[in-house]
């Protein structure tokens, strides 16, 4: 059955007989790169803290998508495992980050990231 210790476990044993074609992988990676670029540009251009936070989430998911695609391509669970962890962490981190944003908002009555520059110098 599933041999977790020896590491020979692959998608092939779980009902996916064939590896993904390289061209298909490229399409996935293209979508992933596009998502990441969108997130990055959004992060750099926006001043709204919540939007900036959403953009970071977008970049996370872009990375996750490429990892799952690679996992399917290599016929193993590594990518999926990673993504499950990333999603878990991201959920926790989202709760904290949004709480921080709320606190910051209470201080300045605004969501403008440029209002916070205390680390200057």
């Amino acid at each position, binding site marked *: 059955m599933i041999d977790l210790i020896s590491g020979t476990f692959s998608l092939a044993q779980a009902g996916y007989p064939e590896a993904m074609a390289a061209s298909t992988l490229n399409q996935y990676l293209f979508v992933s790169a596009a998502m990441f670029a969108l997130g*990055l540009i959004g992060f*750099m251009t926006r*001043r709204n803290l919540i939007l*900036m936070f959403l953009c970071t989430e977008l970049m996370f998911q872009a990375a996750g998508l490429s990892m799952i695609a690679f996992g399917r391509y290599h016929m193993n669970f590594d990518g999926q495992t990673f993504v499950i962890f990333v999603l878990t962490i991201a959920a926790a981190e989202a709760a904290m980050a949004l709480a921080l944003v709320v606190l910051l908002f209470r201080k300045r009555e605004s969501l403008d*990231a*440029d209002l916070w*520059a205390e*680390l*200057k*110098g």
Partner: protein
Amino acid sequence: MMAMTGAILESVLSAALAADPAGGMAGAEHAASQSSGGALMALIPLLPLFGAVLVGVLACFNEKSKMPAYVTVGLLAASFVLTLITYLGWDGHSVMQIRLWDWIGLSWGDGVGQSLDAGFAFYLDGLSLLWMLFVTGLATLIGLYASEYMEHDVGLGYCRFFGAFCLFVFSMSCLVMGDNLLMLFLGWEGVGLCSYLLIGYYYKKKSAVDAGMKAFIVNRIGDLGLLIGTLLTFTTFGSLEFTQLFSTIEAGHSAAGVPLGDTWQVWAIPLLFMAGAFGKSAQLFFYVWLPDAMEGPTPVSALIHAATMVTAGVYLVARMMPLFVADTHLIALTVVTWGGAITAFWAATIAMAQYDIKRIMGYSTISQLGYMFAGLGVLATTGGVYHVFTHAFFKATLFLSCGAVMHGFAGQLDLRKLSGLWKVPGFKIVSIAMLIGCLNLAGFPFTAGFFSKDMIIAEAFVTPDSMIPGSSWAGWLMLLTAGLTAYYTFRVFFRVFVGPTEFYPGDDHHGDDDHGDEDHASTFHPHGPGWAMNFVLIALAGGSVLAAGLYFMGDHHGWAGGMVHASSAQFDPAQIGGHAGGSSAEQADIEHGTVFGFDPHKAMYYISAVVGFIGIGAAWWLHLAGRTQAATSRMESVAAKFGPIPSWAEHKWYVDEFYDFLIVTPLRLISNLFFWFDRLVIDGIVELFGGTPKMGSETIGNATQTGVLHDYALRMIAGTAAVLVVVVLVLY
């Protein structure tokens, strides 16, 4: 606390049991044998130390009562009683020793002089017993006096005072009872420290702080002499323990087997010790610190700067007498004689023109110490030591009387502003005590001071000039000084205590602090001393009187002679060139100097009495006869005939100014030079090494650390992109 006390007691007792009774002083002429002293003996220094700790604990609890004084007086009294018991149980000739623990034990080879063994051990012979008797006795009495005198400072100041007081007695005991030169040095530095602490007791007063530092620094110069002397002693004789040291000296050669006469150390070591002694005892060039030390509270002046600590120098010379007489040319003793005689005269001339009665007493202390040194120098060890003993009593009396006046008249010490205190209510006992002290200091016939001073002056004439060059001239100088002493002593008495009653209070209470006194200027009432101060004055004046009786006790020139005889200070005059020595009666007629053909010992009674009467008469004529007010007397018109000389004397012959010019100013210039060198060059180099990275990081940091989130993000992206580019382009 209890555990600690128990531990100390236990160590004392076990040490007493283990003390080695064997090992006599081989070849010692005076046959002093060692014996183990009782455990009691070790408690003499330890009780005051315990007192200092206890007072420190009281200070921690912010004690507001007179408890520190009671603790101090109680423990010091116990210490005195122990000394007395030890003295009474002493067989009169042996050396009592007790070793508490090994203090310093070093060894770097098996040869002679390749190991240093200095135990925390005590050594009691006649000389140290004599010292301990008056040190603990006077400390007890003066502690009692201080309990009242310092009462306006009850609280932390009171604790500080008595803590240092106890510590002083401990240090002094270590100095006097030390079994080796290192113990002596420990005590020597300890008393110096306590002296510094107590002179600067009124630390808010700049003059007091300066005086403390002056005392400490001047002492330091002398201490260097003592330290080098101690080191040289070790390298020459291979030991620092008195018993071993004296037997080596007795044997007449150094540890390396070189005859002492052929070594340079035989005169260098005594000279170095003499420098230390002169520093501590304020002689010759070093005397300048002692008058300033009068800034301390009066009990301190009485105990430390008159009776005990300043006699440590005399003790050192007396203790090391075997070393001083080992030199056949007696170079060091000649310097001691002349240093003492000149200082005695010099200080007396200054004392004649001062107006501050406490300072007059300070200068007279210097002068009397000069006598003691001259006594040691002319081989009259007994005279010198006896004078230490009598002087301790009468000078303490004088100081404490002055202190009582200061206490009662709001710090007034100017003899032009006090007169006829005899008739002021409450000052009868003070006046009588003062009179007794003055008579002693002036050398009035049949007082203790008369006998002890005469022994010294007579011996100066007895000791031939061939041994101590010019010793008879030193005698004449001391005789002249005796007249001056009588004059300045009774100048104080006639101005302050008798004559028309008139007084003006000082501008502070007890010379120091601010406890918001409201009423003194307008409705000032002098307050006489209370029971404690009066009791102490009576006891000390009585002691001064009784000390005269000691002159007639025993076989060796009185009781003090007996004590000296039973100590290392005793020497065989035959050993120093076959001349007559002072402290040995049976040798005195070998070659005997004379005064106009008379035996100096007998003639001096009459000569010095006459000189004393002349001095007292002059003081009476100039300061009492016909005086109608406090401020002026006949002296003013007489002094005018001397031109500027009285004014020079009043300004202490400008010695302080001369020292300022010669030493202090150049020192300041050099230290300023070094200060700026350090500030500019040394600090500059250090600053350069620290400043360069700081400057660099500030430049970069200010440009990049903007605090704006997007700037950081951009830089992070740029950095990651750069890494990617490098990885992709360069590595693949």
